[in-house]
């Protein structure tokens, strides 16, 4: 559909890539795209760091099933409830809305996914590996970077890419917690669709789909390669 020459999105008149150039030349869309990338990258980094630390804490230091359940709630909580709750929180704390509030919100629910994935990996690896590193004279910090981190690397890659794609096309939470001046791509698309489906939306959807598919493929491959070692 995105390669259709026609202005009407549902009738085929010939092959064209003109909607892609419309896309690139539309300041609204490019702005939304940029905002989305900022949010996705920042979310990935923040949720990776916090999620991994949480998973290690749960696996090695504080073995509490109640805490573990709480850590996973953002992943199973309905988006809408989370979004309204976060909006209420930001307002009561007088935090201005903008990309930063979207990043905090996205990091919160992506962190739950990363914690779950990393926790699973940690349960598989032999905890005597870390003891062996210490026994061989490594400090606790050195042990973390030289032994723990390499062992959970596949989980970090998988979790990071998952967080990235989740954040990339997340609409509900972004819609509630964003400020008016910095729309993310899903919000831009939503506001365009309200006035009818235009062909450049088809093109945009294709681009987003390709990016997501590419990332998922990379994630799959990486996990496979790592598992062979």
């Amino acid at each position: 559909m995105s390669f259709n020459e026609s202005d009407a999105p549902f009738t085929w008149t010939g092959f064209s890539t003109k909607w892609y150039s419309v896309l690139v030349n539309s300041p609204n869309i490019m702005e939304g795209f940029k905002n989305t990338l900022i949010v996705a990258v920042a979310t990935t980094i923040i949720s990776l760091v916090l999620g991994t630390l949480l998973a290690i804490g749960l696996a090695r230091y504080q073995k509490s099933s109640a805490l573990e359940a709480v850590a996973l709630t953002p992943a199973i909580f309905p988006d809408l409830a989370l979004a309204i709750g976060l909006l209420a929180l930001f307002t009561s704390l007088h935090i201005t809305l903008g990309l930063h509030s979207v990043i905090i919100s996205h990091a919160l629910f992506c962190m739950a996914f990363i914690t779950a994935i990393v926790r699973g990996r940690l349960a598989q690896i032999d905890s005597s590996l870390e003891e062996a590193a210490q026994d061989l004279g490594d400090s606790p910090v050195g042990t973390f970077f030289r032994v723990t981190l390499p062992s959970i690397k596949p989980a970090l890659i998988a979790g990071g890419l998952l967080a990235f794609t989740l954040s990339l096309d997340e609409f509900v939470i972004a819609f509630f917690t964003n400020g008016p001046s910095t729309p993310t791509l899903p919000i831009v698309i939503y506001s365009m669709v309200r006035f009818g489906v235009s062909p450049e939306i088809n093109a945009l959807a294709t681009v987003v789909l390709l990016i997501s598919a590419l990332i998922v493929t990379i994630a799959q491959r990486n996990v496979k390669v790592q598992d062979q070692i």
Partner: protein
Amino acid sequence: MSSFLNIAAVSKRYGDVQALDNVSIEIRENEFFALLGPSGCGKTTLLRALAGLESLDSGVVTLANEDLLSVPANKRPVNLMFQSYALFPHLNVYDNVAYGLRREKLDKVKIEQRVGDVLKTVGLIDQKDRRPSQLSGGQMQRVALARAIVKRPKILLLDEPLSALDKKVRSEMQLELKRLQHEAGITFIFVTHDQEEAMSIANRIALMDKGKVVQIATPIEMYSAPKTKFVADFIGTSNLFAGALASGSITVKGKSLPTPATQLAAGAKAVLVVRPEDIELGTNGTISGKLVSSNFYGGSSLLFVDCGFDQLVKVSCALNQVPPVGSVCHLSWNPSDSILLADA
């Protein structure tokens, strides 16, 4: 020789379980020392405490007269070879072995030389670029050993080092461990539940039960002069006859058996220990009974004779003298070869 590693009155409790109960052991330099006992006797806890991976509730441990327990695990001149080997899966054989030396910040040439030397000693220099997952069980075991001894620790701790290997590889590795210990001149402390293994490679053994040390002795002493019934039963094969002591004999299930000279008072409850190889088959004996079965063990056979006791009497017998199953056997032994122990 004076003691090198001095473990004095250490205790450790996990909830309801007393893992170590007032354990004291002195270990000499260059000794091949075995901590032996059934599973759950506290031997692994003690080993992990020496490595610094477990804390103790009370007690003192000194190594060459210096306190060991206040030193963190990564600074102790002690290395542990893990039961699971704990090889780093993301590193190859060379990097696994070099791990400890790199933490000492030695220069590259020196590391290369020491790792190369130790890999040659364990015969794995050709496998140095392989990952642990590409190695056999015996090879992984040798990498784990190389990784621990390359640090030149004062003491090498081995946690059931041979339990994951099959019988043939195990006896080869027992020889190799002995050779390495001799060459490296390192004190080895090794944990095992296999009494045969402990007897065949250790200089001295500490036998543990329920968190307590029962006896510390050389393998020969432990076999020929067990201190308690538990030791006699755990070490080697033996016949235990429990009964009431009379003068010069013990009454077991109505039968009177001769005893060696003893300090125990008549009337006391006692156990008479007779090793299968000390029992002779003859035309008339102290006890007699029907042969129930015979197990063939290469050079000799072990006969099981029903003499009316709670357990079958075990008798070791040369191959060409095994009587047919079902026939009556007359058993006798020299009382001075048997051991009499108080029965708690």
